[in-house]
């Protein structure tokens, strides 16, 4: 590689996390306990660090990028589905980024949000954008449809969703290492 990467990758993985060897991790990345990272996903922490919380699932061809200098903090129990691209300034807990969804870098995601499939989430204001401009969504925001629209959801189904995630993680921890090469901690 001839690209000017002056920093050496600093990747710290908790012993209870599962990271596939095929995953592309670059920069300073911290992966907490219980998180499962599928093959062929990309995490780029090139200017600033990325800290991923506990019990997240990052599926194949998902992309997480930190475009800022300050670290990008991702909370617990988030699901990044196939082909999602998240560049958000920060991510809270219990969020779902559906298939092929995209979040741009001037948005902060709080807790319990859901970004629908193929939605491209941009700030709702079109005023002249400053470098440090950020929009923070409300908790329980649901982004859906073609435009995409937003609304505030009720918390119905959240308990069920968390139980499903817990079972999903348990299944993946049993099944994945049987067939896929894991990165050594």
């Amino acid at each position, binding site marked *: 590689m001839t690209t000017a990467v002056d920093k050496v990758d600093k990747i710290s993985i908790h012993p209870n996390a599962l990271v596939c060897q*095929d995953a592309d991790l670059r920069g300073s990345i911290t992966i907490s306990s219980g998180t499962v990272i599928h093959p*062929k996903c990309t995490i780029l922490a090139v200017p600033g660090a990325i800290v991923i919380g506990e019990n997240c699932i990052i599926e*194949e*061809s998902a992309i997480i990028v930190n475009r800022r200098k300050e670290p990008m903090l991702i909370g617990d129990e988030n699901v990044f589905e196939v082909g999602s691209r998240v560049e958000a300034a920060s991510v809270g807990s219990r969020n779902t980024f559906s*298939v*092929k969804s995209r979040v741009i870098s001037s948005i902060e995601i709080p807790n319990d949000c859901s970004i629908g499939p193929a939605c491209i989430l941009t700030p709702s204001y079109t005023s002249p954008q400053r470098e440090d401009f950020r929009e923070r969504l409300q908790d329980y925001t649901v982004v859906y449809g073609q435009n995409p629209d937003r609304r505030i959801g009720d918390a119905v189904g959240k308990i069920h969703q968390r139980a499903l995630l817990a079972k999903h993680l348990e299944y993946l921890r049993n099944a994945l290492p049987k*067939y896929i090469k894991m990165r050594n901690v």
Partner: protein
Amino acid sequence: MTTRFKNDSLWIETDTGNRISRKATICAPVNIVLSGNVIIKADVIIRGDLKRAGPSPSIAMNIGKYTILDEACVVRPAYKTYKGTFSYYPMKIGDYTSIGAHSVLEAAAVGSYVDIGRGCVVGRFVVIKDCARLTPGSVVPPNTVIPPYALFSGCPATQIDTLPESTLDNVQQATTSAYNDFKMT
């Protein structure tokens, strides 16, 4: 010693005529059945490791003959909890079916002679019947059943038209000639 594997090329051709790119990611090939004359192009991801929970041996993915998986599409089984146990459920793709580039398929069953356009998102447990067609960029919500000879489009995808009775022969001819004209370069 004669062998049909060309080790210097980017492609593998099996005895049954499957043409598989070496750049494709095929997890756990033991659990995947290819019926022959299947084309799998570069950067395709097929998840065979996500199979039914439990000790009994099972197949995760069944792909019919003359099926074409275009560049960078993702084919993975769908998951749910049933009677309290979490499991992935096997996926079946019929014959003479083509799946467009960058599509994400989490269906339960895809019939024969189906044409899925590029950039489509097919949700969990969708059933696509024979001779259906999805226009490029359509997003099919989970648990949808797409009837035979239906043309679906949009986000979320709805039926906009029906296809002529000649679809079966047209699609069969098109996929067969696409396979025969395909050059492994």
